[in-house]
C-alpha cells in the first residue's frame, strides 16, 4: 500500500540522494586513494598517476610493513591497551552503573551529578599530566589505561539502559536467593547485550584511536602504540616543514608515500573489521541509550 509521492517530493528525493551520495563520495574517495596508493609503485605515486585505482599493482609496500619490527611492536602495544583497557572499562562501568540505576540507592542523584560534572568541567592537560606523573604512571602502558578507565558519557548510557530493565525480575531473583553480583552477572548483563556491545565498541575504538595521551605520557619508543607510530610516520613526511629554522646537513629523506599508505591501511583494518559483526547490536544500543531518560 504505497502512497505515490508527489512531483515536488520526488524532486526533493532526487536532490537529497545526489547530495548524500556526494557527501559519501568525499569520504570514500580519500579512503580508496590511500588503498590504491598502498598497492601502487612509489614511482607512480610521485608522478601523481594514482587516482582511486592502483597503478603498477604490487604488494611490496605491504611486505615491507609486515617485516617492520617497530610496526609489530606498536601493534602489540595497541592490542594490549585495547584488550586490557576495554576489560577494565567494562568492569568499572558495570559496577558503577548497576547501583546507580537502582531507585532505592540513596544519594544516587548527587553521585550522578558529580559524574556529569566531570563531563562539563574536565581537568585540563597540565593537572592531568601532574596526576599521572605523581602516580608513577609516566612511561608505562597504565598511563593509557587507568586515566580513561571510566567514561562518564558511557556510564550514563549504561545507567539509562539498566533502568529500563523491569525491577520485578531482580525482585524475583533476590527472592530466589541470588546475591547482587550474580544478579548483575546472570540477569542484568545478558539482558543488556546491545548496550554491552555498544560500550565495548566505544571503548575499544577510543583506545585504538587514542594517540595524544601516549604522545605526552610516553617517551619510550618500545611502548609507542600504533597510532603514535603512525603519527610519527606522517610527521616525518612533513618534516620538511618542521625543519624550519634548523638547517643542518642532514638528509631529508622520508619514508616513501606508498609505505605510509600501507601502514595506514594495516593499522586501520583491524578496528574497521570489527564493525560489521557488532553493527546490529551497536545501532540498537546507541539508540536505546539516547532516547530513554
Amino acid at each position, binding site marked *: 500500500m504505497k502512497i505515490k509521492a508527489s512531483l515536488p517530493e520526488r524532486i526533493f528525493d532526487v536532490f537529497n540522494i545526489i547530495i548524500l551520495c556526494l557527501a559519501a563520495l568525499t569520504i570514500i574517495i580519500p579512503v580508496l586513494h590511500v588503498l590504491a596508493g598502498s598497492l601502487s609503485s612509489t614511482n607512480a605515486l610521485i608522478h601523481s598517476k594514482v587516482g582511486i585505482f592502483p597503478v603498477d599493482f604490487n604488494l611490496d609496500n605491504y611486505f615491507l610493513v609486515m617485516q617492520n619490527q617497530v610496526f609489530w611492536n606498536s601493534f602489540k602495544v595497541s592490542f594490549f591497551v585495547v584488550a586490557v583497557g576495554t576489560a577494565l572499562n567494562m568492569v568499572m562501568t558495570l559496577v558503577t552503573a548497576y547501583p546507580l540505576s537502582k531507585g532505592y540507592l540513596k544519594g544516587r542523584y548527587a553521585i550522578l551529578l558529580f559524574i556529569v560534572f566531570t563531563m562539563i568541567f574536565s581537568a585540563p592537560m*597540565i593537572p592531568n599530566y601532574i596526576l599521572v*606523573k605523581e602516580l608513577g604512571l609516566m612511561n608505562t602502558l597504565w598511563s593509557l589505561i*587507568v586515566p580513561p578507565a571510566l567514561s562518564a558519557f558511557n556510564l550514563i548510557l549504561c545507567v539509562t539502559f539498566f533502568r529500563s530493565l523491569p525491577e520485578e525480575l531482580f525482585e524475583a531473583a533476590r527472592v530466589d536467593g541470588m546475591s547482587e553480583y550474580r544478579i548483575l552477572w546472570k540477569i542484568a548483563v545478558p539482558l543488556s547485550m546491545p548496550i554491552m556491545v555498544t560500550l565495548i565498541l566505544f571503548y575499544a575504538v577510543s583506545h585504538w584511536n587514542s594517540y595524544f595521551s601516549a604522545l605526552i605520557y610516553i617517551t619510550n619508543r*618500545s611502548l609507542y602504540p600504533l597510532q603514535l607510530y603512525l603519527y610519527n610516520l606522517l610527521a616525518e613526511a612533513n618534516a*620538511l616543514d618542521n625543519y624550519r629554522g634548523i638547517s643542518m646537513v642532514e638528509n631529508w629523506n622520508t619514508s616513501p608515500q606508498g609505505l605510509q599508505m600501507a601502514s595506514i591501511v594495516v593499522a586501520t583494518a583491524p578496528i574497521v573489521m570489527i564493525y560489521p559483526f557488532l553493527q546490529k547490536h551497536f545501532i540498537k544500543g546507541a539508540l536505546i541509550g539516547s532516547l530513554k531518560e
Partner: protein
Amino acid sequence: MNRNKIWKGFALVLALVMFLSACAGSGSTTNSTNSSNTGSSNTGSTGSTNTDSGSNAAPQTPEPAEPPTITVYASDFAKVTPTDHDADPTIQYMREKSGINVQMVFVANSNYTEQMQLKFASGEYPDAFQSSGINNGAAALAVEMLLPLNDLIEQYGPNLKKNIPQEAWDAVTLNGQILGIPAPSEVKSSRILFIRKDWLDKLGLDYPKTSEEYLDVLRAFRDNDLNGNGEKDEIPFSTRQGFNWVMDAIWGMWGLSPSAGFEYNGEVIPGFAHPRFKEPLRFVQTMYQEGLMDSEFLTNSSSIWAQKFESGRVGSYGYMPSAAWAFHKRMVDATPDQGINMMTMPTPRGTGWDGPVGATFSTISQSYHVMNTAKDPVAVVKFFDWLFSEEGQIFTDLGLEGLNYKIENGKIVYDEATEVEHETQWRATLKMHGHNPVTLEAKYPGEAGEKLARGLEISHSEGFDSLTLNMPPMDAELQNVLFNSWQERAAEIVVNNEPVENWDKFIEEVWRKQGGNDLIKAMTDWVNSNK
C-alpha cells in the same frame, strides 16, 4: 541489613580492582624504567638505573668514582631512538668517552615545544634541553629558569670557546648573560636557489647572473619540452603556499627578506614594507603572468611542492643550502630516467640593485640550555664541551668506528646504511659543531660532497644582516602583522596584474594604519636599545 551487605561487597570489589591495577602499574613502572632509562629525573627510579648501569659497566671499565648523571631532553627529529639505552653501544660510547652518565629523553619532534611547555608547567625540569635559541622554541618558555653559563664555560669549556663564533653566542646571550650553548650554523646565507643544471646544459645556457637572465632561463625552461614527454607540463619555478620562506632567495635578489628588519628613513621596517620590495614583487608578477611561476604557488603544501620537483617537472626552486645534495638525490631516486642534475646557484643580481644579495644570515642551527634546577651544571657543560671536541664531532657526524664507519689506509669510510640498520640517526639531535671539512668529506664522498661544498661555498659568499635577528617574538598581534598582514595584498597584485606601484600606496595608507606603525615602532625601539 541486606543493603548494607551489598555496599560492603561493592566497596570490597572496588578496592580489590584498584589494588590490583596499582600493583600491576607499579610492577610495569620499574620494568620499563629499568629497561629504557627514560624515567624522570626526580623519582627514585634514576637511582636504581644508576646502579644498574654501574654494575653493567664494572667488568669492562673499573671506575673508582660514579660518573655524574645528567638528564637531557631533546627532540627525536622524527628518527628511531634506541629502546634500551643501557644496551645501546652508541649511547654507551657517548657516556664512556664524555665521562658523564647522560640520560637522554627523546620527545616526539612534531610537538616538541608544546610537550616541553607541558613538562615545565608540571614542574618536570631536565638538567638540559634542546631549543632553537632563547627567543624561539622551548627556551623562550623558560628564560627565567635558564642558568647563566659565563663562568662555567670559561672554566670547563675550552672546546666551546674555541669552536663557537661570537655571532652564535649572541643568539643565546641576554644582557651579557650566556643562557645556553649554541650550535653554530653550518651555513651563512640561509636560503639558496636550486636549478636544473641538465636543462641548462641542454639549452647551452650558463647559470643566470642577473634577474633578467634568470627570467630568460625560466622562459626557455617553459618553452622547450625539456623533460621530453611531448607535453608542456614543465613548471619553470615552483614554491609553497603563503609566500613561504622557500622563496626567500627571490626577494634576496634585491637584498630583502620579508620578515627581516631593515633601516629606512631612520626607522627599522620589515623587508616587505621597504620601497625596494616593489622590484621583486614585479619580478614575481612577471613570472606569474608569463606562466613561469607554478600556477598553484599560493596553495602548494610542502608535500605537493616536493612531489612536483621529485617528478622532474620543476626547473628551479629555493630551499636551504644544506639540502644541496639531499634534494638532488631525492629527485634522482624518484625519477631516475631523466638524467636530473640539480645544482645550487649563486643568487642572481636584481636589476638596479648593487647591494648584497642572497638571504639573511643564520647564526645558529639549534641550542641546548641548562636549567637553574640542575644539580650538576658542571657535568652538563663538560658533556657539551666533549661534543665540540674532535672526538665528539666525529661521534655526532659519523658515529662509532666499526659500527658506522671504518678506517681503511688512514681514510675514513662511512656507511650511511648502518645508521638506519643500527637505529643511530638520533645522533643528529646532538650535533652541535658547525662546518667540519673532515667529517663532511667522509660522510659525503664524491658527487655528494661536491654538491654540498658548492652550496655551502655560495652560502658563505652572499647574504645580508637582519637588524632584528635576535629580537624576541612580539605579542601575537604584531607577529601576525609581521608575517601575514602583507600576503593577501601582494597575492592580489601578482595574480590580478595590478601595477606594483599600488604596493607603496598599500603600505603607506592601509598597512601602516592597521598595525604597521606599531610594528615599526616595536622593531625600531628594540634595535635602538640593543644595537
